[in-house]
Protein backbone atom coordinates (compact mmCIF):
# COMPACT_ATOMS: atom_id res chain seq x y z
CA UNK A 1 0.00 0.00 0.00
CA UNK A 2 1.30 3.36 -0.94
CA UNK A 3 0.12 6.69 0.39
CA UNK A 4 0.05 9.56 -2.06
CA UNK A 5 -0.17 13.24 -1.25
CA UNK A 6 -3.95 13.33 -1.65
CA UNK A 7 -4.43 10.55 0.86
CA UNK A 8 -2.06 12.25 3.29
CA UNK A 9 -4.04 15.47 2.95
CA UNK A 10 -7.29 13.60 3.55
CA UNK A 11 -6.01 11.86 6.68
CA UNK A 12 -4.79 15.20 8.00
CA UNK A 13 -8.16 16.74 7.36
CA UNK A 14 -10.03 13.91 9.10
CA UNK A 15 -7.77 14.35 12.12
CA UNK A 16 -8.24 18.13 11.93
CA UNK A 17 -4.52 18.67 11.75
CA UNK A 18 -3.42 21.51 9.54
CA UNK A 19 -0.66 20.51 7.16
CA UNK A 20 0.85 23.01 4.73
CA UNK A 21 0.80 22.00 1.09
CA UNK A 22 4.59 22.00 1.03
CA UNK A 23 4.78 19.54 3.93
CA UNK A 24 2.56 16.94 2.27
CA UNK A 25 5.21 15.04 0.25
CA UNK A 26 7.29 14.48 3.37
CA UNK A 27 4.21 13.43 5.37
CA UNK A 28 3.16 10.95 2.70
CA UNK A 29 6.67 9.56 2.71
CA UNK A 30 6.59 9.18 6.49
CA UNK A 31 3.28 7.29 6.26
CA UNK A 32 4.79 4.99 3.68
CA UNK A 33 7.75 4.23 5.93
CA UNK A 34 5.40 3.31 8.79
CA UNK A 35 3.16 1.21 6.58
CA UNK A 36 6.23 -0.42 5.11
CA UNK A 37 7.24 -1.52 8.59
CA UNK A 38 3.74 -2.95 9.20
CA UNK A 39 3.93 -4.65 5.82
CA UNK A 40 7.09 -6.32 7.05
CA UNK A 41 5.20 -7.65 10.10
CA UNK A 42 2.70 -9.22 7.72
CA UNK A 43 5.40 -11.63 6.65
CA UNK A 44 5.00 -13.46 9.95
CA UNK A 45 2.52 -16.30 9.69
CA UNK A 46 0.01 -15.85 12.53
CA UNK A 47 -2.53 -18.33 11.21
CA UNK A 48 -4.38 -19.82 14.18
CA UNK A 49 -2.60 -17.62 16.72
CA UNK A 50 -4.91 -15.68 18.99
CA UNK A 51 -4.01 -11.98 19.20
CA UNK A 52 -2.26 -11.15 22.46
CA UNK A 53 -4.06 -8.30 24.14
CA UNK A 54 -2.08 -8.08 27.34
CA UNK A 55 1.38 -9.09 28.49
CA UNK A 56 0.08 -10.16 31.88
CA UNK A 57 -2.91 -12.43 32.30
CA UNK A 58 -5.61 -10.03 33.45
CA UNK A 59 -9.27 -9.47 33.06
CA UNK A 60 -10.90 -6.22 31.95
CA UNK A 61 -11.31 -4.18 35.11
CA UNK A 62 -14.90 -3.28 36.00
CA UNK A 63 -16.58 -0.67 38.14
CA UNK A 64 -19.83 -0.86 40.07
CA UNK A 65 -22.80 1.19 38.82
CA UNK A 66 -22.32 3.95 41.36
CA UNK A 67 -22.13 7.68 40.74
CA UNK A 68 -18.71 8.61 42.07
CA UNK A 69 -17.64 11.45 39.81
CA UNK A 70 -18.84 14.66 38.17
CA UNK A 71 -20.28 17.86 39.67
CA UNK A 72 -17.22 19.82 38.67
CA UNK A 73 -18.37 22.00 35.79
CA UNK A 74 -15.79 24.71 36.59
CA UNK A 75 -12.93 22.23 36.37
CA UNK A 76 -14.31 20.66 33.19
CA UNK A 77 -14.73 24.05 31.52
CA UNK A 78 -11.46 25.53 32.77
CA UNK A 79 -9.54 25.05 29.52
CA UNK A 80 -12.40 26.02 27.24
CA UNK A 81 -11.42 28.87 24.90
CA UNK A 82 -14.98 30.14 25.21
CA UNK A 83 -17.78 29.19 27.58
CA UNK A 84 -21.18 30.76 28.18
CA UNK A 85 -23.94 30.00 30.63
CA UNK A 86 -22.32 26.74 31.60
CA UNK A 87 -21.87 25.54 28.03
CA UNK A 88 -18.80 25.21 25.85
CA UNK A 89 -19.26 27.81 23.13
CA UNK A 90 -17.96 26.88 19.69
CA UNK A 91 -18.30 28.39 16.22
CA UNK A 92 -21.73 27.60 14.83
CA UNK A 93 -22.12 24.06 13.50
CA UNK A 94 -25.36 23.50 11.66
CA UNK A 95 -26.57 20.58 9.62
Amino acid at each position, binding site marked *: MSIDQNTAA*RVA*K*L*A*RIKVEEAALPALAEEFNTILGFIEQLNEVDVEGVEPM*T*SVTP*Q*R*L*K*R*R*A*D*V*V*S*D*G*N*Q*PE*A*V*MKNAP*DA*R*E*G*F*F*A*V*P*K*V*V*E
Partner: protein
Amino acid sequence: MLDLTYDLPKVKTIAGAKHDWELVIGMEVHAQVSSNAKLFSGASTQFGSEPNSNVSFVDAAMPGMLPVINEYCIEQAVRTGLGLKAEINLKSAFDRKNYFYPDLPQGYQISQLYHPIVGEGEVLVEMGDGTARLVRVERIHMEQDAGKSIHDMDPNMSFVDVNRTGVCLMEIVSKPDIRGPEEAAAYITKLRQILRYLGTCNGDMQSGAMRADVNVSICLPGQYEKYQATQDFGHLGTRCEIKNMNSMRFIQQAIDVEAKRQIAILEAGGKVDQETRLYDPDKGETRSMRSKEEAHDYRYFPDPDLLPLEIEQAWVDEIEANLPELPDAKKARFVSDFNLSDYDASVLTADLDTADYFELVANGRDGKSSANWVINELFGRLKKDEKDITESPVTPAQLGGIIDLIASDAISGKIAKDLFEIVYTEGGDPAQIVEDKGMKQVTDLGPIEAALDEIIAANPAQVEKAQANPKLAGWFVGQVMKATGGKANPKAVNELVAQKLKG
Protein backbone atom coordinates in the same frame (compact mmCIF):
# COMPACT_ATOMS: atom_id res chain seq x y z
CA MET B 1 -46.64 -22.65 24.44
CA LEU B 2 -46.71 -19.55 22.33
CA ASP B 3 -48.88 -19.71 19.30
CA LEU B 4 -46.55 -18.63 16.55
CA THR B 5 -48.88 -18.94 13.63
CA TYR B 6 -49.73 -15.65 12.07
CA ASP B 7 -50.20 -14.20 8.61
CA LEU B 8 -47.63 -11.82 7.26
CA PRO B 9 -48.59 -8.17 6.93
CA LYS B 10 -49.06 -6.82 3.44
CA VAL B 11 -45.91 -5.34 1.96
CA LYS B 12 -46.23 -1.60 1.39
CA THR B 13 -46.07 -0.81 -2.31
CA ILE B 14 -45.90 2.58 -3.93
CA ALA B 15 -47.19 3.00 -7.46
CA GLY B 16 -44.62 4.35 -9.87
CA ALA B 17 -45.10 5.66 -13.41
CA LYS B 18 -44.75 2.20 -14.95
CA HIS B 19 -45.07 -0.28 -12.12
CA ASP B 20 -45.21 -0.75 -8.37
CA TRP B 21 -42.23 -0.42 -6.08
CA GLU B 22 -41.69 -2.21 -2.77
CA LEU B 23 -40.04 -0.85 0.36
CA VAL B 24 -37.19 -2.46 2.24
CA ILE B 25 -36.31 -1.03 5.64
CA GLY B 26 -33.66 -1.80 8.23
CA MET B 27 -33.27 0.04 11.51
CA GLU B 28 -30.52 0.89 13.92
CA VAL B 29 -32.12 1.71 17.22
CA HIS B 30 -30.05 3.49 19.83
CA ALA B 31 -31.36 2.69 23.28
CA GLN B 32 -29.88 4.41 26.30
CA VAL B 33 -29.10 1.86 28.97
CA SER B 34 -30.83 2.48 32.29
CA SER B 35 -27.92 2.81 34.71
CA ASN B 36 -26.85 5.22 37.41
CA ALA B 37 -23.37 5.90 36.06
CA LYS B 38 -21.90 6.10 32.58
CA LEU B 39 -20.40 3.26 30.56
CA PHE B 40 -16.77 4.09 31.32
CA SER B 41 -16.89 6.69 34.09
CA GLY B 42 -18.49 7.31 37.46
CA ALA B 43 -20.43 10.39 36.33
CA SER B 44 -24.21 10.41 36.60
CA THR B 45 -26.54 9.67 33.67
CA GLN B 46 -29.31 11.87 35.08
CA PHE B 47 -31.27 13.56 32.27
CA GLY B 48 -31.95 17.28 32.57
CA SER B 49 -29.08 18.14 34.91
CA GLU B 50 -27.25 21.49 34.82
CA PRO B 51 -25.07 21.68 31.71
CA ASN B 52 -21.68 19.99 32.01
CA SER B 53 -22.29 18.91 35.61
CA ASN B 54 -22.44 15.16 34.90
CA VAL B 55 -18.95 15.07 33.50
CA SER B 56 -15.88 13.27 34.75
CA PHE B 57 -12.43 13.93 33.35
CA VAL B 58 -12.80 10.65 31.44
CA ASP B 59 -15.89 12.01 29.66
CA ALA B 60 -14.15 15.32 29.05
CA ALA B 61 -11.28 13.36 27.49
CA MET B 62 -8.62 14.95 29.65
CA PRO B 63 -5.19 13.58 28.81
CA GLY B 64 -4.22 10.43 30.69
CA MET B 65 -7.72 9.48 31.79
CA LEU B 66 -8.61 5.83 31.30
CA PRO B 67 -12.01 4.19 30.78
CA VAL B 68 -13.20 1.60 33.33
CA ILE B 69 -16.29 -0.32 32.27
CA ASN B 70 -19.52 -0.23 34.27
CA GLU B 71 -20.42 -3.85 35.04
CA TYR B 72 -24.14 -3.13 35.24
CA CYS B 73 -24.13 -1.79 31.67
CA ILE B 74 -22.69 -5.11 30.50
CA GLU B 75 -25.42 -6.92 32.42
CA GLN B 76 -28.09 -4.71 30.85
CA ALA B 77 -26.79 -5.42 27.34
CA VAL B 78 -26.76 -9.16 28.05
CA ARG B 79 -30.27 -8.96 29.49
CA THR B 80 -31.48 -7.15 26.40
CA GLY B 81 -29.88 -9.77 24.16
CA LEU B 82 -31.56 -12.57 26.08
CA GLY B 83 -34.87 -10.72 25.89
CA LEU B 84 -34.54 -10.66 22.10
CA LYS B 85 -33.67 -14.38 22.08
CA ALA B 86 -30.24 -13.54 20.79
CA GLU B 87 -26.93 -15.31 21.11
CA ILE B 88 -24.63 -13.79 23.72
CA ASN B 89 -20.98 -13.51 22.81
CA LEU B 90 -18.89 -14.43 25.85
CA LYS B 91 -16.01 -12.58 24.29
CA SER B 92 -16.48 -9.13 22.77
CA ALA B 93 -14.17 -6.17 22.26
CA PHE B 94 -14.19 -2.40 21.99
CA ASP B 95 -13.12 -0.33 19.02
CA ARG B 96 -12.64 3.34 18.44
CA LYS B 97 -14.90 4.98 15.89
CA ASN B 98 -13.10 8.17 14.96
CA TYR B 99 -14.88 11.32 13.91
CA PHE B 100 -14.64 14.97 14.68
CA TYR B 101 -17.56 16.81 16.18
CA PRO B 102 -17.75 19.48 18.89
CA ASP B 103 -19.91 17.36 21.22
CA LEU B 104 -17.47 14.45 21.14
CA PRO B 105 -14.52 15.48 23.34
CA GLN B 106 -12.50 12.30 22.73
CA GLY B 107 -12.67 12.66 18.97
CA TYR B 108 -13.82 9.07 18.89
CA GLN B 109 -16.65 7.00 20.23
CA ILE B 110 -15.84 3.72 21.97
CA SER B 111 -18.02 1.14 20.23
CA GLN B 112 -17.99 -2.53 19.27
CA LEU B 113 -17.66 -2.89 15.51
CA TYR B 114 -15.86 -6.19 15.07
CA HIS B 115 -16.94 -8.17 18.12
CA PRO B 116 -20.33 -7.10 19.49
CA ILE B 117 -21.56 -8.49 22.81
CA VAL B 118 -24.85 -9.73 21.32
CA GLY B 119 -25.35 -11.61 18.06
CA GLU B 120 -28.46 -12.56 16.10
CA GLY B 121 -31.89 -12.35 17.70
CA GLU B 122 -35.46 -11.58 16.74
CA VAL B 123 -38.48 -9.38 17.43
CA LEU B 124 -42.04 -10.48 16.69
CA VAL B 125 -43.75 -7.40 15.30
CA GLU B 126 -47.54 -7.53 15.54
CA MET B 127 -49.56 -5.20 13.39
CA GLY B 128 -52.74 -5.27 15.48
CA ASP B 129 -54.84 -6.80 12.70
CA GLY B 130 -53.80 -10.37 13.37
CA THR B 131 -50.76 -10.17 11.10
CA ALA B 132 -47.19 -10.18 12.34
CA ARG B 133 -43.65 -10.31 11.05
CA LEU B 134 -40.60 -11.80 12.69
CA VAL B 135 -37.89 -9.16 12.25
CA ARG B 136 -34.38 -10.48 12.63
CA VAL B 137 -31.91 -8.60 14.78
CA GLU B 138 -28.40 -8.72 13.39
CA ARG B 139 -26.51 -7.61 16.47
CA ILE B 140 -26.49 -5.43 19.56
CA HIS B 141 -23.37 -3.60 20.60
CA MET B 142 -22.53 -1.22 23.41
CA GLU B 143 -21.19 2.23 22.70
CA GLN B 144 -20.79 5.67 24.20
CA ASP B 145 -23.35 8.34 23.52
CA ALA B 146 -22.18 11.75 22.33
CA GLY B 147 -22.95 15.12 23.93
CA LYS B 148 -25.49 17.65 22.78
CA SER B 149 -25.06 20.77 20.70
CA ILE B 150 -27.57 23.55 21.02
CA HIS B 151 -27.73 25.80 17.99
CA ASP B 152 -30.47 28.28 18.83
CA MET B 153 -29.16 30.05 21.92
CA ASP B 154 -26.80 32.35 20.07
CA PRO B 155 -26.77 33.62 16.47
CA ASN B 156 -23.07 32.91 15.92
CA MET B 157 -22.17 30.16 18.34
CA SER B 158 -23.23 26.61 19.08
CA PHE B 159 -23.41 25.68 22.75
CA VAL B 160 -22.14 22.29 23.82
CA ASP B 161 -23.26 20.26 26.82
CA VAL B 162 -21.33 17.04 27.32
CA ASN B 163 -23.51 15.62 30.11
CA ARG B 164 -24.71 12.86 27.80
CA THR B 165 -21.20 12.06 26.62
CA GLY B 166 -20.28 8.56 27.64
CA VAL B 167 -23.74 7.37 28.65
CA CYS B 168 -24.10 3.73 27.60
CA LEU B 169 -26.07 3.08 24.45
CA MET B 170 -27.14 -0.22 23.02
CA GLU B 171 -27.25 -0.08 19.26
CA ILE B 172 -29.79 -2.65 18.14
CA VAL B 173 -29.33 -3.36 14.45
CA SER B 174 -32.11 -5.08 12.52
CA LYS B 175 -31.84 -6.93 9.25
CA PRO B 176 -33.71 -5.34 6.33
CA ASP B 177 -36.85 -7.29 7.25
CA ILE B 178 -39.24 -4.36 7.68
CA ARG B 179 -41.50 -3.73 4.70
CA GLY B 180 -43.40 -0.52 5.29
CA PRO B 181 -43.69 2.65 7.41
CA GLU B 182 -46.36 1.14 9.69
CA GLU B 183 -44.18 -1.92 10.26
CA ALA B 184 -41.26 0.34 11.13
CA ALA B 185 -43.36 2.07 13.78
CA ALA B 186 -44.67 -1.27 15.06
CA TYR B 187 -41.10 -2.60 15.26
CA ILE B 188 -39.99 0.33 17.42
CA THR B 189 -43.11 0.04 19.55
CA LYS B 190 -42.45 -3.64 20.19
CA LEU B 191 -38.76 -3.14 20.84
CA ARG B 192 -39.56 -0.34 23.25
CA GLN B 193 -42.10 -2.54 25.03
CA ILE B 194 -39.57 -5.36 25.44
CA LEU B 195 -36.83 -3.02 26.70
CA ARG B 196 -39.23 -1.49 29.21
CA TYR B 197 -40.29 -4.92 30.43
CA LEU B 198 -36.63 -5.84 30.81
CA GLY B 199 -35.88 -2.56 32.57
CA THR B 200 -32.85 -2.02 30.35
CA CYS B 201 -34.01 1.25 28.75
CA ASN B 202 -36.83 3.59 29.73
CA GLY B 203 -37.82 3.93 26.06
CA ASP B 204 -38.47 7.66 26.35
CA MET B 205 -38.24 8.88 22.77
CA GLN B 206 -38.88 12.51 23.62
CA SER B 207 -35.80 12.82 25.79
CA GLY B 208 -33.84 10.89 23.17
CA ALA B 209 -33.36 7.80 25.35
CA MET B 210 -34.50 5.86 22.31
CA ARG B 211 -33.85 7.03 18.75
CA ALA B 212 -33.44 5.38 15.40
CA ASP B 213 -31.49 5.58 12.19
CA VAL B 214 -33.68 4.25 9.41
CA ASN B 215 -32.24 2.62 6.28
CA VAL B 216 -34.61 2.84 3.33
CA SER B 217 -34.33 1.34 -0.13
CA ILE B 218 -36.81 0.39 -2.83
CA CYS B 219 -36.95 -2.59 -5.16
CA LEU B 220 -39.13 -4.15 -7.83
CA PRO B 221 -41.63 -6.78 -6.72
CA GLY B 222 -39.92 -10.16 -6.57
CA GLN B 223 -36.45 -8.81 -5.78
CA TYR B 224 -36.92 -8.97 -2.03
CA GLU B 225 -37.77 -12.66 -2.16
CA LYS B 226 -34.53 -13.23 -4.06
CA TYR B 227 -32.65 -11.39 -1.31
CA GLN B 228 -34.30 -13.50 1.40
CA ALA B 229 -33.47 -16.71 -0.45
CA THR B 230 -29.80 -15.81 -0.91
CA GLN B 231 -29.16 -13.06 1.71
CA ASP B 232 -27.40 -11.28 -1.14
CA PHE B 233 -27.95 -7.52 -0.88
CA GLY B 234 -27.25 -7.23 -4.60
CA HIS B 235 -30.91 -8.00 -5.23
CA LEU B 236 -31.96 -4.90 -3.31
CA GLY B 237 -31.73 -1.22 -4.17
CA THR B 238 -29.19 1.26 -2.84
CA ARG B 239 -30.16 2.37 0.64
CA CYS B 240 -30.12 5.77 2.26
CA GLU B 241 -29.84 6.22 5.99
CA ILE B 242 -32.13 8.74 7.65
CA LYS B 243 -30.42 9.77 10.87
CA ASN B 244 -31.57 10.45 14.37
CA MET B 245 -35.33 10.01 14.35
CA ASN B 246 -37.10 10.15 17.67
CA SER B 247 -40.75 10.39 16.74
CA MET B 248 -42.90 7.50 15.60
CA ARG B 249 -44.91 9.79 13.35
CA PHE B 250 -41.86 11.37 11.70
CA ILE B 251 -40.26 7.97 11.14
CA GLN B 252 -43.28 6.91 9.10
CA GLN B 253 -43.43 10.18 7.19
CA ALA B 254 -39.70 10.13 6.49
CA ILE B 255 -39.80 6.58 5.09
CA ASP B 256 -42.66 7.47 2.80
CA VAL B 257 -41.03 10.67 1.57
CA GLU B 258 -37.64 9.01 1.10
CA ALA B 259 -39.09 6.07 -0.84
CA LYS B 260 -40.90 8.44 -3.18
CA ARG B 261 -37.72 10.44 -3.69
CA GLN B 262 -35.81 7.29 -4.66
CA ILE B 263 -38.59 6.17 -7.02
CA ALA B 264 -38.53 9.55 -8.78
CA ILE B 265 -34.75 9.28 -9.25
CA LEU B 266 -34.84 5.74 -10.61
CA GLU B 267 -37.78 6.36 -12.90
CA ALA B 268 -36.02 9.40 -14.36
CA GLY B 269 -33.15 7.10 -15.25
CA GLY B 270 -30.95 8.27 -12.38
CA LYS B 271 -29.05 6.47 -9.65
CA VAL B 272 -29.59 6.58 -5.89
CA ASP B 273 -26.43 7.53 -4.01
CA GLN B 274 -25.79 5.71 -0.76
CA GLU B 275 -25.71 8.54 1.77
CA THR B 276 -26.83 9.83 5.12
CA ARG B 277 -29.89 12.03 5.06
CA LEU B 278 -31.86 14.14 7.49
CA TYR B 279 -35.66 14.40 7.61
CA ASP B 280 -37.10 17.90 7.77
CA PRO B 281 -40.66 17.57 9.07
CA ASP B 282 -41.48 21.21 8.33
CA LYS B 283 -40.66 20.88 4.66
CA GLY B 284 -41.67 17.22 4.44
CA GLU B 285 -38.44 16.25 2.71
CA THR B 286 -35.19 14.44 3.38
CA ARG B 287 -31.92 16.11 2.53
CA SER B 288 -28.34 15.02 2.32
CA MET B 289 -26.14 15.54 5.39
CA ARG B 290 -23.04 16.61 3.53
CA SER B 291 -21.08 17.08 6.70
CA LYS B 292 -21.44 13.37 7.43
CA GLU B 293 -19.99 12.26 4.13
CA GLU B 294 -16.36 12.66 5.01
CA ALA B 295 -17.00 11.73 8.59
CA HIS B 296 -18.13 8.35 7.34
CA ASP B 297 -14.48 7.39 7.14
CA TYR B 298 -14.41 6.28 10.76
CA ARG B 299 -10.98 4.62 10.74
CA TYR B 300 -12.05 2.02 13.28
CA PHE B 301 -9.36 0.30 15.29
CA PRO B 302 -9.33 -1.73 18.52
CA ASP B 303 -9.31 0.52 21.59
CA PRO B 304 -5.91 0.08 23.18
CA ASP B 305 -7.21 1.26 26.58
CA LEU B 306 -9.58 -1.66 26.97
CA LEU B 307 -8.95 -5.37 27.17
CA PRO B 308 -11.43 -7.64 25.43
CA LEU B 309 -14.59 -8.12 27.45
CA GLU B 310 -14.93 -11.68 28.67
CA ILE B 311 -18.00 -12.84 30.54
CA GLU B 312 -18.88 -16.23 31.97
CA GLN B 313 -21.69 -18.47 30.77
CA ALA B 314 -22.76 -19.01 34.39
CA TRP B 315 -23.34 -15.26 34.77
CA VAL B 316 -25.35 -15.17 31.54
CA ASP B 317 -27.41 -18.13 32.80
CA GLU B 318 -28.05 -16.33 36.06
CA ILE B 319 -29.30 -13.24 34.21
CA GLU B 320 -31.47 -15.43 32.00
CA ALA B 321 -32.96 -17.22 35.01
CA ASN B 322 -34.03 -13.85 36.39
CA LEU B 323 -35.59 -12.48 33.22
CA PRO B 324 -39.11 -11.18 33.75
CA GLU B 325 -42.01 -12.59 31.79
CA LEU B 326 -41.82 -10.88 28.40
CA PRO B 327 -44.67 -9.31 26.40
CA ASP B 328 -45.30 -12.22 23.99
CA ALA B 329 -45.45 -14.77 26.81
CA LYS B 330 -47.54 -12.54 29.03
CA LYS B 331 -50.00 -11.86 26.25
CA ALA B 332 -50.35 -15.56 25.47
CA ARG B 333 -50.91 -16.27 29.16
CA PHE B 334 -53.55 -13.54 29.46
CA VAL B 335 -55.39 -15.04 26.48
CA SER B 336 -55.32 -18.55 27.90
CA ASP B 337 -55.66 -17.91 31.65
CA PHE B 338 -58.12 -15.03 31.59
CA ASN B 339 -59.97 -15.92 28.41
CA LEU B 340 -59.17 -12.57 26.83
CA SER B 341 -59.41 -11.66 23.17
CA ASP B 342 -56.14 -11.13 21.35
CA TYR B 343 -56.90 -7.41 21.21
CA ASP B 344 -57.68 -7.03 24.91
CA ALA B 345 -54.57 -9.01 25.83
CA SER B 346 -52.45 -6.71 23.63
CA VAL B 347 -53.88 -3.60 25.23
CA LEU B 348 -53.40 -4.95 28.75
CA THR B 349 -49.82 -6.08 28.16
CA ALA B 350 -48.73 -2.92 26.32
CA ASP B 351 -46.79 -1.91 29.39
CA LEU B 352 -45.87 -3.63 32.59
CA ASP B 353 -47.74 -1.28 34.93
CA THR B 354 -51.02 -1.92 33.13
CA ALA B 355 -50.40 -5.68 33.02
CA ASP B 356 -49.59 -5.81 36.73
CA TYR B 357 -52.66 -3.74 37.57
CA PHE B 358 -54.92 -5.92 35.48
CA GLU B 359 -53.56 -9.09 36.96
CA LEU B 360 -54.25 -7.88 40.49
CA VAL B 361 -57.83 -7.11 39.48
CA ALA B 362 -58.41 -10.30 37.49
CA ASN B 363 -56.93 -12.81 39.91
CA GLY B 364 -59.78 -14.89 41.28
CA ARG B 365 -62.33 -12.94 39.22
CA ASP B 366 -63.84 -13.18 35.78
CA GLY B 367 -61.11 -12.19 33.31
CA LYS B 368 -63.37 -10.79 30.66
CA SER B 369 -65.29 -8.44 32.95
CA SER B 370 -62.05 -7.42 34.69
CA ALA B 371 -60.62 -6.55 31.27
CA ASN B 372 -63.72 -4.57 30.38
CA TRP B 373 -63.57 -2.57 33.58
CA VAL B 374 -59.86 -1.82 33.24
CA ILE B 375 -59.96 -0.99 29.53
CA ASN B 376 -63.31 0.79 29.23
CA GLU B 377 -64.07 2.38 32.58
CA LEU B 378 -60.68 2.88 34.19
CA PHE B 379 -58.69 3.81 31.05
CA GLY B 380 -61.50 6.05 29.89
CA ARG B 381 -61.64 7.86 33.21
CA LEU B 382 -57.86 8.17 33.51
CA LYS B 383 -57.64 9.52 29.99
CA LYS B 384 -60.16 12.22 30.85
CA ASP B 385 -57.80 13.38 33.61
CA GLU B 386 -54.68 12.73 31.49
CA LYS B 387 -53.49 10.34 34.14
CA ASP B 388 -51.25 7.31 33.88
CA ILE B 389 -52.24 3.90 35.27
CA THR B 390 -49.63 4.40 38.00
CA GLU B 391 -51.50 7.53 39.11
CA SER B 392 -54.88 5.82 39.23
CA PRO B 393 -56.88 6.91 42.29
CA VAL B 394 -58.68 3.55 42.15
CA THR B 395 -56.52 0.69 43.39
CA PRO B 396 -56.77 -2.81 41.92
CA ALA B 397 -58.32 -3.95 45.21
CA GLN B 398 -61.02 -1.27 44.98
CA LEU B 399 -61.81 -2.04 41.35
CA GLY B 400 -61.87 -5.75 42.21
CA GLY B 401 -64.30 -4.93 45.03
CA ILE B 402 -66.67 -3.23 42.58
CA ILE B 403 -66.51 -6.21 40.21
CA ASP B 404 -67.23 -8.54 43.13
CA LEU B 405 -70.33 -6.54 44.02
CA ILE B 406 -71.64 -6.92 40.47
CA ALA B 407 -70.76 -10.61 40.36
CA SER B 408 -72.69 -11.27 43.59
CA ASP B 409 -75.69 -9.34 42.23
CA ALA B 410 -75.34 -6.87 45.08
CA ILE B 411 -75.38 -3.95 42.64
CA SER B 412 -76.48 -3.53 39.06
CA GLY B 413 -74.07 -2.67 36.24
CA LYS B 414 -75.50 0.81 36.05
CA ILE B 415 -75.08 1.47 39.76
CA ALA B 416 -71.58 0.04 39.49
CA LYS B 417 -70.61 2.90 37.19
CA ASP B 418 -71.88 5.43 39.73
CA LEU B 419 -70.02 3.55 42.45
CA PHE B 420 -66.85 3.60 40.34
CA GLU B 421 -67.11 7.37 40.01
CA ILE B 422 -67.50 7.73 43.78
CA VAL B 423 -64.51 5.50 44.46
CA TYR B 424 -62.51 7.37 41.80
CA THR B 425 -63.23 10.82 43.19
CA GLU B 426 -63.73 10.18 46.91
CA GLY B 427 -62.03 6.87 47.57
CA GLY B 428 -63.25 4.36 50.12
CA ASP B 429 -64.20 0.72 50.31
CA PRO B 430 -66.77 -0.09 47.59
CA ALA B 431 -68.78 -2.52 49.72
CA GLN B 432 -68.97 0.03 52.56
CA ILE B 433 -70.04 2.80 50.17
CA VAL B 434 -72.82 0.62 48.77
CA GLU B 435 -73.96 -0.10 52.32
CA ASP B 436 -73.76 3.52 53.48
CA LYS B 437 -75.44 5.04 50.45
CA GLY B 438 -78.07 2.36 50.09
CA MET B 439 -77.02 1.46 46.58
CA LYS B 440 -77.75 -2.20 46.97
CA GLN B 441 -79.68 -3.82 44.20
CA VAL B 442 -83.18 -4.83 45.17
CA THR B 443 -83.40 -8.53 44.55
CA ASP B 444 -86.29 -9.04 46.88
CA LEU B 445 -89.21 -9.42 44.44
CA GLY B 446 -91.82 -8.02 46.87
CA PRO B 447 -91.10 -4.29 46.53
CA ILE B 448 -90.40 -4.66 42.80
CA GLU B 449 -93.69 -6.38 42.26
CA ALA B 450 -95.53 -3.76 44.29
CA ALA B 451 -93.97 -0.98 42.23
CA LEU B 452 -94.83 -2.77 39.00
CA ASP B 453 -98.41 -3.42 40.04
CA GLU B 454 -98.84 0.25 40.79
CA ILE B 455 -97.48 1.24 37.37
CA ILE B 456 -99.68 -1.28 35.57
CA ALA B 457 -102.75 -0.07 37.42
CA ALA B 458 -102.03 3.56 36.60
CA ASN B 459 -101.35 2.95 32.88
CA PRO B 460 -104.00 0.70 31.36
CA ALA B 461 -103.44 2.16 27.87
CA GLN B 462 -99.76 1.27 27.96
CA VAL B 463 -100.61 -2.25 29.13
CA GLU B 464 -102.82 -2.73 26.14
CA LYS B 465 -100.15 -1.49 23.73
CA ALA B 466 -97.50 -3.65 25.31
CA GLN B 467 -99.68 -6.70 25.16
CA ALA B 468 -100.19 -6.10 21.44
CA ASN B 469 -96.51 -5.41 20.87
CA PRO B 470 -94.17 -7.10 23.40
CA LYS B 471 -91.33 -4.82 22.32
CA LEU B 472 -92.97 -2.02 24.26
CA ALA B 473 -92.58 -3.93 27.54
CA GLY B 474 -89.30 -2.08 27.96
CA TRP B 475 -91.25 0.99 29.00
CA PHE B 476 -92.45 -0.84 32.10
CA VAL B 477 -88.94 -2.01 32.92
CA GLY B 478 -87.76 1.58 32.68
CA GLN B 479 -90.56 2.80 34.93
CA VAL B 480 -89.77 0.19 37.57
CA MET B 481 -86.07 1.02 37.47
CA LYS B 482 -86.98 4.67 37.90
CA ALA B 483 -89.33 3.92 40.78
CA THR B 484 -86.66 1.89 42.57
CA GLY B 485 -83.89 4.43 41.96
CA GLY B 486 -82.07 2.08 39.57
CA LYS B 487 -81.50 -0.42 42.33
CA ALA B 488 -83.83 -3.14 41.04
CA ASN B 489 -82.18 -6.12 39.45
CA PRO B 490 -82.89 -5.56 35.72
CA LYS B 491 -83.07 -9.27 35.01
CA ALA B 492 -85.66 -9.84 37.70
CA VAL B 493 -87.66 -6.82 36.53
CA ASN B 494 -87.62 -8.06 32.94
CA GLU B 495 -88.95 -11.43 33.95
CA LEU B 496 -91.58 -9.96 36.19
CA VAL B 497 -92.81 -7.52 33.54
CA ALA B 498 -93.11 -10.27 30.93
CA GLN B 499 -95.00 -12.42 33.38
CA LYS B 500 -97.40 -9.69 34.49
CA LEU B 501 -98.18 -8.44 30.99
CA LYS B 502 -99.01 -11.94 29.86
CA GLY B 503 -101.83 -11.51 32.22
